[in-house]
């Protein structure tokens, strides 16, 4: 594919796309891991109790009624550690778990304790302890900026999947984006002229467009232009759409000069009615997520051993079933960790229990682990981000939630 040789040439030689502050002063230390880190955000609030079920909790079956997973029956949950079992829609994750490459942290929440999706997502993505109107940057971007100089990750910035950049990846560190598309690329000549106009008339647009063109260059080299790869297959709530997003992200972060850190969002997890954990909506969503994990595993190939996926959601859902065979906005939920770099094969939980007195405000799973501690633990062990930077810059005012240790193998 040499459709646009001139643009590639320009960008490869004189591009100077990323500020020099992000260029590595020296190569990574010998033997250091060239890690990949991907955050997948499940927008809408994942129902943790029908995803990783505490079958060992005496209150579980009664509380969950028609949404309860079961150890037996026609569609049994996949056993994990004797107490918890996994929704059968996630066979890939179950396999990774058995291979020591998948872990679950249960009863997790951000510091947010209200029930607005949008504030909750802002807290999750901004990394701030509480909602702030119009938060400007996200913790994953600030993490890139905090990675010690010399690591390749800082030089290559972040990757946002989709037509827009989510808050989690907004900020000073460079970010590129990718989405399946339906139009042929504009000519190189036009692109360079528009870029030139922006450089003189609107530097902010120049910077954004330059990065957009940079992604196209990498995507083209990784064989992602033309053919099937680029045709949208479905929304980010559909099984093929989730798989495709993961496939595209895996290709881009696998490139030697591509970003090391990526963020994806999947939608549709707000299961207020007819939740269908085994044969309906939630089951399909989990199949899509499981497929995405599989795409990362196969797409990253030999790099999978140095990869960690962190799968998060803004909050959990009510412990009880609501009036419409679904669940309403709740509090604690779970986080999945997957990848060859993860010390897996375990469910990490300080289980709060499901008895009436144990529920948060009498209705939700009570949080016992701060989500920020998990993210901080991964950033510390994958990239060597210092504790002070994690407590202050990446997750401001988070010293009370210190990095969780031993998440990385």
């Amino acid at each position, binding site marked *: 594919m040499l459709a646009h040789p001139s643009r590639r040439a320009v960008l490869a030689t004189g591009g100077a796309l990323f500020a020099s502050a992000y260029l590595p002063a020296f190569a990574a230390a010998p033997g250091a891991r060239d890690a990949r880190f991907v955050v997948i955000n499940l*927008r809408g609030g994942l129902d943790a109790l029908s995803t990783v079920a505490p079958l060992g909790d005496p209150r579980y079956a009664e509380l969950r009624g028609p949404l309860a997973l079961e150890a037996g029956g026609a569609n049994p949950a996949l056993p994990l550690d004797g107490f918890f079992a996994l929704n059968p829609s996630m066979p890939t994750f179950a396999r990774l778990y058995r291979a020591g490459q998948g872990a679950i942290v249960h009863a997790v929440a951000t510091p947010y304790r209200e*029930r*607005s*999706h*949008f*504030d909750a997502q802002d807290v999750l993505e901004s990394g701030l302890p509480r*909602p702030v109107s*119009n938060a*400007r940057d996200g913790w994953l971007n600030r993490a890139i900026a905090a990675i010690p100089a010399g690591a390749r990750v800082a030089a290559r910035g972040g990757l*946002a999947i*989709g*037509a*827009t*950049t989510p808050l989690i990846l907004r900020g000073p560190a460079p*970010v*590129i*984006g990718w*989405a399946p*598309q*339906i*139009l*042929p690329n504009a*000519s190189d*000549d*036009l692109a360079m*002229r*528009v870029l030139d*106009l922006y450089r*003189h*008339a*609107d530097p*902010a*647009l120049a910077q*954004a*467009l*330059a*990065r*957009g063109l*940079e*992604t*196209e260059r990498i995507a083209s080299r990784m064989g992602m232009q033309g053919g099937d790869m680029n045709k*949208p*297959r479905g*929304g980010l709530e559909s*099984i*093929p759409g989730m798989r495709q997003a993961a496939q595209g992200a895996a290709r881009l972060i696998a490139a030697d000069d591509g970003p090391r850190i990526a963020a994806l969002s999947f*939608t549709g997890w*707000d299961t*207020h*009615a007819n939740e*269908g954990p085994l044969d*309906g909506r939630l*089951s*399909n969503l989990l199949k899509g997520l499981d497929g995405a994990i599989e795409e990362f595993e196969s797409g990253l190939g030999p790099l999978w051993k140095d990869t960690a996926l962190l799968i998060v959601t803004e909050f959990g859902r009510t412990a009880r079933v*609501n*009036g*419409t065979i*679904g669940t309403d*906005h709740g509090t604690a939920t779970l986080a999945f960790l997957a990848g060859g770099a993860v010390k897996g094969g375990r469910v990490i939980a300080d289980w709060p229990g499901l008895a009436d007195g144990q529920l948060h*405000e009498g209705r939700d799973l009570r949080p016992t682990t701060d989500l920020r501690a998990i993210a901080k633990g991964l950033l510390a062990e994958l990239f060597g981000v210092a504790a002070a930077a994690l407590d202050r810059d990446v997750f401001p005012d988070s010293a009370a939630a210190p990095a969780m240790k031993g998440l990385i193998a």
Partner: protein
Amino acid sequence: MANMTLGYRALTRFGLGPRGDDDIAAAARDPRGLLKAELADPGLALLDAPGLVRSADAAKMLFARVAEVKRESERKPDMPAMGPAAAPAPPPQKPPPTPEGMVFRAEAFARIKRAAEAKAGFVERLVAFWSNHFAVSAAKSGFLRVTAGPFEREAIRPHVLGRFADMLAAVERHPAMLAYLDNNLSIGPDSPAGKNRRRGLNENLAREILELHTLGVGGGYRQADVIALANMLTGWAFVGAAGVLGEPGAFVFNVNTHQPGPQTMMGRVYPAGGVGQAEGALADLARHPATARFVATKLVRHFVADEPPPALVETLARTFRDTEGDLRAVSLALVDSDAAWSAPPTKLRSPWEFLVAAWRLTRRPGEDLGPILGWLTMLGQPLWQPAAPNGFSDLSADWATPENLKLRLDVAARLAERVRDLPDPRDILERSVGAAASEQTRMAIARAESRQQGLALLLMSPEMQRR
């Protein structure tokens, strides 16, 4: 500021962009008058066109097709039934258009056509703003796909120049909203139906009314208020396919599912009283000072700046309070303020605004509008299909992203290529941006290697991207 620039600003900040006829010169003669003339035309927001049907009629078409598919599948028992879980593999060839697809496209094309032809387009901008404030998503189900367009015409447009309380009342009882936020499934636990069946309350609609439609998230309500409003809203539903309670697809208050008894929301008791109970609560929410502030902030953020100037927000909020939510008066206050005109053009046009502005400048009579729908989706703003009930973002940072700029470039190239017998792009620049054009943009267009490239450069210029 020179009058030419003010005229350009009237058409871009408040309107949908110049059409490239003589409109920029006309706007320069009386920038405020152009906008006020639109606000003074009571019927301007309404939309009716051949092929558009009422939401209840659209729903009946859908019900009939579902019944037909069911009969088909019963005749051929080996065929998979329709349903959300069915058919994971896409069919190899394009299926024939479904009735819901046809209804959706007719609605979408009517909206695009209206936007393309509107004079300044200020009222259409207001329609899009309010439609996004009260967002529903056509992607949720077949029912939403056929009712999302009618929802805008029936619940939003009649009140854009009217009262906020009337818009709120029309929105919350519209079948599209009731279906989108699951209220048609919500059942009062102590209602006759709630006692018989093991189904009950769903908080979704009540929470989003408080958080997104009226008070805003800091507006002073608590979980107990959400539940109280949810209880009051039980019974607000639409009639099903069988038509037991009335016309299929139309709003109905179902006493059988309504939670009996008084409710207390935000310290105020709403006595039992059927549909009037929640209507009273909505009326109080509509006139709440927090609602005035929330709405004013969103309007200023949409039209003027991501960081809304506080004094301008206060002006609009005060007008909202003083006029009991007269939206024409609030819109006039925006036009009359100096701050709304003097703020620099920092806002990036949303994909909808960019595509409509580009289309107004380059459209050809009778042209297929289908590509615009596809490009809206590609640029992250599929028509009437936001990812969540808070609608599409109104912050420039959400649109000024690498991928979005790169995709806009591809769209601009495509738009410019399709135009044959193109006039000199320097003339188009004069007739659309005029004196507001920067020296750099003039030069870039003058140096273009072809007319097509010159037009694409104009479409991508900061003057066309920002407002």
